[in-house]
């Protein structure tokens, strides 16, 4: 073995020697003929213990017979692995160290640093500390302020690359305020927008506007209470909780079941309204297409305005049947009569829808339908456009009579305003999912501000549409009382703009309907059977029940205003009025911060909610 001479007794000589050796060999580095001569030179200058790296490099490149000198004696096997004098040489193959393929190693010259040094140091630290304690011991567990935020967490492969976990950052507080506000606005604006003008009519113009604004404020406050309810629970980790979980925490299983029940009421109410509206729109669309194809001018005896922007008053007929059944007299036209027989708003069309929608309801996961979310926004914007256009065309017709109804106008203050409050309870309803929507807000401290802005925008939208439709309703020929519960019904089926609106809304509702069905199914079947999709039969029976309810309502009581106000007042009672206030009172009481003004105020809210529901039945 090429190795040691005796080491000298004095140190400086050694250092000098080693330096000389290095210099000498550096000089010789470029010439390849040095192989053996370099080796022999080294041998003769053998006054040092330290081999210069260069000389070893050269030796490694030598031909094999010289190389053998580096192998410990007794072993003539060609050595495939790295040599290590600590290994038992006879068994060297089996003790080869763990070898990572070169292709898997990240080059050190990579400009892009995959994982920051700080992060990998922290990673090692946490690894090491976790070995020092028993798993149950919390002494060395990294506190939150030390661990990087989830969006900065990487999975670091020992082979060099770093991956960011997508699911970690998904939906985790990355929406800007604007997006959150838009999402809240979009979710809140539903089909109750169609009933707002009717609600204003029922309440009177001034009263209606005041009621809209006051209800907006009241529901906003209750929504604020819902959002804050989670943060008042300090003992448990509530980050994944939704409002029903909060109710369960405070009221036990009664809270859970009752919140489930009321949530179902709102969902099923919404689905019934959807069915009624869909049959309405489908009917009108079919009629429009039929009339368009057969060039029929729809001159029926329904009172309407006689100009280029017709507005009809479908309910102004003797007997006052509110639904638009086809009691229309024509010169007998068998084709038309056939069509009228088979295409009837309340007798046949609701059933045609079953064939379309029942299969869609049976899907296990409706995520396909959530892609059509944009249709909702588009239809609302289009409605706004439509209303503005019509208002421009028709002009304003307002007269203010305070208490007495006239032939064409309604009084400003009417005592049927609870009908409007019932509609508005559902119109401003978002309390069961507001926590989830705000969870994704990037700056959580702006939650209340964003919520208020969203509510303000929604109130403005409702006011805008309600006021414009009400004000532009052509009162001299028609009475304001003619405003339908679905204001699109006031436009004849031949009107192109409203036809487009109906088509939009029809498509939008057809995509939202399965989502609503899915939500209702998840909640009910999930709680009753424990499984979201117990079997096709359970799901089918559930869907048949819902669809049946929709069909029945469409046939016999297609007053969406009525349906909305009943279901709105019912589910609003729990989620909007009672639960938030009660939970707030209880949590304050637990913290001993309860004061009399707060109790009185919140009990007053609860009483309002109860009154809202009870009065609906008397109107």
């Amino acid at each position, binding site marked *: 073995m090429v190795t040691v001479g005796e080491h000298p007794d004095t140190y400086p000589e050694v250092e000098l020697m080693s330096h000389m050796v290095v210099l000498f060999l550096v000089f010789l580095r470029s010439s390849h003929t040095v192989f053996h001569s370099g080796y022999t030179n080294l041998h003769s200058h053998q006054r040092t213990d330290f081999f210069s790296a260069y000389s070893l490099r050269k030796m490694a490149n030598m031909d094999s017979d010289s190389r053998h000198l580096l192998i410990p004696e007794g072993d003539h096997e060609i050595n495939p692995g790295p040599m290590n004098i600590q290994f038992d040489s006879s068994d060297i193959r089996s003790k080869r*160290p763990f070898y990572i393929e070169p292709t898997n190693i990240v080059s050190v010259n990579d400009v892009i640093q995959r994982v920051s040094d700080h992060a990998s140091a922290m990673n090692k630290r946490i690894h090491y500390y976790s070995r*020092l304690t028993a798993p149950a*011991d919390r002494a060395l567990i990294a506190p939150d302020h030390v661990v990087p935020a989830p969006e900065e967490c990487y999975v670091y492969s020992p082979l060099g690359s770093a991956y960011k976990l997508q699911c970690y950052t998904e939906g985790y507080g990355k929406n800007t305020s604007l997006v959150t506000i838009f999402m809240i606005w979009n979710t809140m604006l539903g089909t109750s927008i169609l009933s707002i003008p009717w609600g204003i009519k029922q309440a009177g113009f001034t009263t209606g506007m005041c009621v809209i604004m006051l209800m907006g404020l009241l529901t906003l406050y209750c929504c604020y209470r819902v959002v804050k309810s989670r943060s008042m629970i300090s003992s448990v980790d509530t980050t994944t909780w939704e409002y029903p979980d909060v109710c369960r925490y405070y009221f036990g299983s009664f809270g859970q079941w009752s919140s489930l029940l009321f949530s179902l009421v709102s969902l099923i109410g919404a689905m019934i309204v959807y069915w009624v509206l869909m049959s309405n729109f489908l009917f009108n669309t079919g009629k429009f297409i039929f009339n368009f194809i057969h060039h029929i001018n729809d001159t029926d005896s329904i009172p309407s305005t006689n100009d280029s922007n017709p507005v009809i008053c479908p309910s102004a007929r003797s007997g006052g049947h509110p639904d638009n059944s086809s009691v229309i007299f024509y010169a007998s036209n068998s084709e038309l009569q056939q069509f009228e027989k088979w295409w009837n708003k309340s007798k046949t069309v609701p059933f045609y829808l079953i064939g379309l929608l029942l299969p869609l309801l049976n899907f296990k996961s409706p995520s396909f339908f959530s892609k059509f979310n944009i249709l909702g926004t588009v239809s609302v914007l289009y409605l706004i456009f439509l209303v503005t256009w019509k208002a421009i065309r028709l002009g304003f017709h307002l007269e203010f009579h305070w208490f007495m109804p006239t032939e064409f106008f309604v009084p400003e203050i009417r005592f049927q305003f609870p009908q409007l409050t019932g509609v508005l309870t559902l119109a401003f309803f978002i309390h069961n999912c507001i926590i989830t929507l705000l969870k994704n807000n990037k700056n959580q401290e702006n939650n209340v501000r964003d919520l208020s802005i969203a509510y303000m925008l929604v109130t403005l939208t409702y006011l805008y549409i309600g006021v414009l439709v009400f004000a532009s309703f052509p009162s001299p020929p028609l009475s304001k009382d003619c405003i339908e519960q679905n204001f699109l019904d006031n436009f004849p089926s031949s009107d192109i703009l409203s036809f487009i609106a109906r088509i939009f809304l029809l498509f939008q509702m057809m995509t939202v309907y399965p989502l609503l069905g899915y939500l209702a199914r998840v909640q009910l079947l999930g709680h009753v059977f424990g499984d979201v999709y117990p079997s096709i039969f359970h799901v089918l029976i559930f869907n048949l029940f819902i669809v049946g309810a929709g069909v029945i309502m469409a046939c016999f009581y297609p007053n969406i205003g009525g349906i909305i106000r009943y279901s709105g007042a019912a589910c609003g009672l729990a989620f909007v009025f009672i639960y938030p206030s009660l939970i707030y009172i209880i949590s304050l009481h637990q913290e001993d911060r309860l004061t009399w003004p707060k109790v009185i105020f919140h009990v007053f809210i609860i009483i309002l909610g109860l009154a809202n529901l009870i009065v609906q039945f008397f109107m």
Partner: protein
Amino acid sequence: MEESDSEKKMEKENLGPRMDPPIGEPEGSLGWVLPNTAMKKKVLLMGKSGSGKTSMRSIILANYIARDTRRLGATILDRLHSLQINSSLSTYSLVDSVGNTKTFDVEHSHVRFLGNLVLNLWDCGGQDTFMENYFTSQRDNIFRNVEVLIYVFDVESRELEKDMHYYQSCLEAILQNSPDAKIFCLVHKMDLVQEDQRDLIFKEREEDLRRLSRPLECSCFRTSIWDETLYKAWSSIVYQLIPNVQQLEMNLRNFAEIIEADEVLLFERATFLVISHYQCKEQRDAHRFEKISNIIKQFKLSCSKLAASFQSMEVRNSNFAAFIDIFTSNTYVMVVMSDPSIPSAATLINIRNARKHFEKLERVDGPKQCLLMR
């Protein structure tokens, strides 16, 4: 006795192959290596209860934190004349058959570092009256033969006055019993302070402590176990404890240049704190010392589960080769070569030869009791 047998065994294993045989045990002791004539030099780790001393020691010395110390006391009880167990202090004080009171750390009594030094933990202040009395009565024993006093302050403590008071009383005891001791103050748990205020708060504390410590000199560090600051502070402390560290560094530099290594590090054996290092070019990762230390300590923990001890390691890929090996009786060396074509055998031979030089270096240096001597 079972306990002492296992303690003895672990003691031998933790130190790895020693250069000299262990001292024989005197009669009546519990396997504690304690020559009758010379007392061991101590490092006192003191501070208020709950300031983080046990965690700190566990992290630095790579020991399991055993929370339950009462368990050990019961088996020793019947063998002795009198026993005073102080479980929150995690130290035991025994009076043996000869009447000598010995204080030792039962949990981890066999881990020594820097050769002769033993780490003793003491809760200072905030304990109940029993321990208060005990502390005062054993004061001289505790503070005798102290090489280093490390006092830990919790930065979040609400009772600054009391902390300072206890600190000063410890200093008085040091002045009486071991006036040559080095004093270090650690302001701990700095991660709980907001980043922008850390420097300010530390400066304040440092000034106060310097002022209070007069005439003794104290060095202050700010530390947190979630930071590289703890490791750096302890490395600095260990660096100051080595008497001939400059010469060591010079020799290390020469060694590195001769074998053309990228970097050579010298670690203290038990704690893997970096004593000195030489690098011939800029390295990318500033946290590498602590990372290596953590990795090896973690590996040592795994080895100890199999009753094995860590001796050496070689890591190699197409870009570099790194060798970690025992160096002197109290140090490990790590050599990083960026030329992977050099066979391992050569580097290991170099390390082996260098070892002899450095051992001589330690032995040659002065007749006085050197820390790095056996």
